[in-house]
């Protein structure tokens, strides 16, 4: 049937170009409504080309000259009326190619597929007899391909080309026909494929080699080499395969076999090698994992370090905050706030010790601004533990110091630590009146982590807490010092104000007293003078012995009173510092002589022997306050006379050698030797009443009466020694009294600092007539002067000189005459000392008691030897003038004498 319709029938529709192109090669099958168009294969070489067109795919090989017929039966669906018979007529279609056994299975599949696609109710494919033959023919081919085209009713359904591959029974050549030529197309495709496989097989090892070469770190070079060899060998087999498509020789077969054997060997080795490598590769993986873990750990540590750095920064900031103030409250408040913030604390509290030392009081907290009434006993175990430990210690959250807020009981407590804060300089705190129970005091700082959080105290947090506690301690001590100093300053200011007030009051009092003294002094002096003067006059009159005694007593008492008045004034001036030394050059020897003359009368009345011993090296002249020095000597020696009933009073004066100055040193007296000064020591020793040793310190104080008995008898020492002490102090000196005891006499000594007279060279000794020319007094009109000179010419000349200067001159030629004439009115007596001048000077001094009331006795001499001057000084003359005397010189001399009351011209 296929053969008859093959050439006549045309497809109703030509679905594809291929269909049109292959008119002759198509057979139309029209049964009922459906037409199945089945291409068939003609027994020529063009068929492979057509198949290519239809399927777009190439069969690798097609065996030409084989005519295969396949018949197929299509059973129409029931909805379609059968065309020829009542039973569904079988649709047959022609197979283009006969298949082997396995082909039938493929066909079944095709049938099922087709039926599904076109919605046929029933589809039956049956194979005609030719199939079997064909199957036989097909043996030995690698691939078979079929394509079916179906065309049902009006529509033509083209099924895509179906490919069915199935393995060809690889029978050897000698099964039926060993030299059976292979299908040429398939052979060709196989040939090409093998070539490309070989090409690929060869190129892959090259790439592998390249990889091995470039990758220095890859560990499994050998494996790759083996792998490469395996691939090369596989490629070789495929390459050798090229020769097996055609008739091949035995050599080829041997080569092929060898190649295959090698391939097998190498592949097995490779497989084994791979088995060996796998654990290694797996271990590489493990190592990688390990490294990854390590890196993660490092990351974590890094994070930790960062956190610690952050904490450190916080500590610094915190420290800065704490240190930025010196106010104690601010420090503590800041500490708590900053700690709370830095460590994210639930609560932070500071317990300060109470002044009793037995309890701690809650002073500051983070959340409660003004905690009051919280106290805990100090001897709790938790507190003791914290106090005895330098580091923060964990304490129970139930501890009283931690129980600051009402606890709901809902959550667990957070971790609590306590750290001690040493209270340095505790004595400066308000709790300073603690009993001295222990040397160290601490405050307690309690820190709580938030409740119901799993947070624990970290080591670095605890360290931070400790550092902060130390810082707080330091800051507190600073603040305490500041507070203390502020307090001290306030106190000092108060004291200063009080002292100032007291000083002002005292000054006012002193001024008032001084005013009073000055007024009283003046007011008392005037009547006192009258009393003294009139009693003196009374003494000159005729009196009965009783009256004379009375007058003498009056005179004595009034003299004492006058001295006392002077003393009081002196003392008041001494005390307010207004008394100043009147320094000048004076005759030191004559001071002693004068004192001696003054005390001699009393001493002789009391039958006391008075001796004066002036050291030979004592300078005749000295610079100092003559009046005060004399007052001091007089007072000391006067006391000696006063307190002695019998025996001797020995006065001695000497210069303290600079090398022995040290012996006189006391707490208040530091004599220092110098070229311009010397220290005069005066000692007055008596055999009088003496002083008991315990009274010695009091003797120099005002109005002290150490010897009531002696006082009663002698009128008391009064202010004398107190004033002496002040005078001596003013003269940079020191006064002291030594006594063996009552009734054993005593020795009063004092040292004063005196200057050497200014004498740049010896020739100008003491004479300063030409200095102070502008101060020289030029008018001596009415000045009463007495001139005593045996030499008439000299007398006349001297008189002429003095008259020329305006003086009222009286001349005498002998000392007897002079003594007759001289009176208190004469201010100066010029005398030639050659004969009996020295004696005359003594007479004058004896006649006029006080120095200021007697005439100045000045030697006028032509003798230029030193002895003259020394004699003059020794005999207490007030000056020496060398002849010749000019008018100017005389003027200067007079001026100088009246001003300074002494003048010694250099020889």
């Amino acid at each position: 049937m296929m053969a008859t319709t093959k050439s006549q029938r045309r497809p109703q529709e030509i679905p594809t170009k291929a269909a049109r192109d292959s008119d002759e090669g198509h057979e139309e099958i029209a049964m009922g409504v459906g037409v199945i168009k089945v291409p068939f294969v003609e027994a020529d070489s063009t068929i492979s080309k057509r198949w290519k067109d239809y399927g777009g795919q190439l069969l690798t090989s097609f065996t030409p000259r084989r005519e295969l017929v396949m018949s197929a039966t299509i059973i129409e669906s029931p909805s379609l009326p059968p065309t020829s018979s009542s039973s569904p007529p079988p649709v047959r279609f022609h197979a283009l190619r006969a298949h082997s056994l396995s082909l039938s299975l493929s066909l079944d599949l095709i049938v099922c597929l087709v039926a599904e696609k076109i919605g046929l109710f029933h589809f039956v494919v049956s194979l005609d007899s030719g199939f079997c033959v064909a199957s036989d023919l097909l043996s030995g081919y690698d691939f078979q391909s079929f394509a079916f085209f179906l065309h049902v009713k009006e529509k033509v359904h083209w099924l895509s080309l179906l490919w069915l591959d199935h393995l060809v029974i690889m029978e050897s050549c000698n099964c039926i026909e060993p030299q059976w030529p292979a299908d040429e197309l398939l052979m060709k495709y196989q040939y090409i494929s093998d070539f490309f496989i070989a090409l690929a097989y060869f190129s892959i090892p090259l790439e592998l080699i390249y990889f091995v070469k470039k990758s220095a770190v890859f560990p499994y070079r050998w494996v790759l080499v083996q792998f490469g060899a395996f691939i090369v060998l596989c490629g070789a087999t495929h390459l050798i395969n090229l020769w097996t498509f055609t008739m091949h020789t035995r050599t080829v077969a041997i080569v092929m076999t060898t190649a295959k054997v090698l391939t097998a060997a190498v592949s097995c080795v490779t497989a084994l090698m791979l088995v060996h490598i796998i654990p290694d590769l797996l271990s590489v993986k493990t190592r990688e994992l390990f490294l990854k873990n390590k890196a993660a750990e490092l990351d974590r540590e890094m994070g930790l370090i960062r956190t610690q750095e952050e904490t450190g920064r916080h500590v610094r900031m915190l420290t800065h905050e704490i240190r930025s103030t010196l106010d104690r409250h601010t420090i503590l408040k800041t500490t708590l706030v900053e700690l709370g913030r830095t460590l994210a604390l639930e609560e932070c509290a500071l317990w300060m010790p109470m002044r009793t030392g037995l309890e701690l009081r809650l002073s500051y907290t983070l959340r409660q601004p003004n905690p009051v009434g919280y106290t805990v006993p100090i001897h709790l175990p938790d507190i003791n533990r914290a106090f005895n430990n330098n580091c923060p210690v964990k304490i129970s959250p139930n501890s009283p110091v931690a129980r600051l807020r009402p606890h709901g009981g809902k959550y667990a407590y957070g971790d609590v630590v306590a750290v001690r804060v040493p209270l340095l300089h505790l004595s400066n705190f308000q709790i300073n009146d603690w009993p001295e129970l222990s040397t160290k005091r601490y405050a307690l700082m309690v820190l709580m982590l938030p409740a119901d959080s799993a947070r624990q105290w970290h080591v670095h947090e605890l360290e931070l807490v400790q550092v902060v506690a130390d810082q707080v301690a330091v800051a507190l001590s600073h603040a305490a010092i500041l507070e203390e100093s502020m307090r001290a300053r306030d106190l000092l200011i108060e004291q200063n104000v009080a002292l100032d007030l007291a000083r002002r009051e005292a000054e006012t009092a002193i001024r008032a007293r001084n005013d009073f003294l000055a007024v009283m002094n003046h007011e008392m002096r005037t009547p006192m003078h009258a009393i003294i003067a009139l009693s003196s006059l009374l003494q000159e009159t005729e009196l009965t012995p009783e009256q004379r005694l009375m007058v003498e007593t009056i005179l004595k008492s009034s003299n004492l009173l006058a001295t006392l008045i002077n003393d009081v004034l002196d003392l008041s001036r001494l005390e307010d510092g207004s008394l100043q030394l009147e320094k000048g050059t004076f005759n030191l020897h004559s001071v002693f002589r004068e004192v001696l003359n003054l005390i001699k009368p009393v001493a002789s009345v009391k039958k006391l022997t008075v001796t004066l011993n002036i050291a030979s090296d004592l300078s005749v002249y000295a610079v100092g306050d003559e009046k005060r020095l004399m007052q001091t000597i007089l007072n000391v020696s006067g006391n000696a006379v006063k307190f002695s009933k019998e025996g001797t009073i020995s006065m001695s004066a000497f210069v303290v050698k600079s090398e022995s100055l040290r012996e006189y040193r006391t707490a208040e007296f530091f004599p220092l030797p110098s070229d311009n000064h010397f220290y005069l020591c005066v000692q007055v020793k008596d055999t009088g009443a003496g002083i008991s040793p315990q009274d010695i310190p009091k003797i120099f104080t005002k109005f002290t009466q150490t010897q009531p008995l002696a006082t009663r008898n002698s009128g008391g020492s009064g202010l004398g020694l107190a004033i002496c002490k002040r005078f001596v102090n003013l003269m940079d000196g020191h006064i002291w009294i030594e006594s063996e005891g009552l009734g054993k006499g005593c020795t009063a000594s004092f040292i004063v600092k005196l200057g050497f007279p200014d004498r740049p060279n010896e020739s100008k000794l003491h004479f300063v007539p030409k200095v102070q020319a502008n101060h020289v007094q030029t008018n001596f009109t009415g000045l009463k002067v007495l001139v005593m000179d045996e030499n008439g010419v000299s007398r006349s000349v001297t008189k002429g000189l003095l008259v020329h200067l305006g003086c009222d001159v009286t001349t005498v030629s002998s000392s007897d005459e002079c003594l007759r004439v001289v009176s208190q009115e004469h201010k100066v007596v010029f005398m030639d000392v050659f004969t009996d001048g020295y004696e005359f000077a003594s007479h004058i001094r004896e006649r006029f008691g006080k120095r200021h009331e007697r005439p100045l006795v000045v030697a006028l001499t032509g003798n230029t030897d030193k002895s003259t001057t020394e004699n003059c000084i020794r005999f207490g003359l007030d000056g020496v003038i060398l002849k010749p005397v000019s008018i100017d010189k005389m003027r200067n001399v007079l001026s100088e004498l009246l001003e300074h009351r002494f003048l010694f011209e250099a020889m």
Partner: protein
Amino acid sequence: MDAISQWRKQWFDYIQYLRQEKGFLDDQFVQLKKLQDENSPDFVVEVISLFFQDSEKLLNNMANSFEQEVVDFKQIDAHVHQFKGSSASIGAMRIKNVCVTFKNYCEAQNMDGCLRCLQQLQQECSVLKNKLEKLLNLERQILAAGGSIPVLE
């Protein structure tokens, strides 16, 4: 007037001659001249005449002393001392110098030296007397003519 100024010049030259060239007088004499003022117009003359009276007396005394059997040098020394004082007072420099030498001889009890000095003193005194008289005459002449004595420095 010419005469007066001439006399004045003469006086001045003479006194300079006495002072500087011969050393008869020293500054003390100038001081004496200064002391002579309205209140004591004859001061210098009085003092000089006093001096010559004194010196005459002293010279006689000394001469007598040397004629004694036992020469009292101490006594002579006292006289010389006085002579020296007087001469110094009027500024008779040469006499004063002789006195100083004289005193030394007295202390040494050198009779020859003392006698020589005594003679010298006598001679000097008479010379000085002549010179001063001449000077004083000149002064008187000037004053009489209505002039004034020049002031010495």
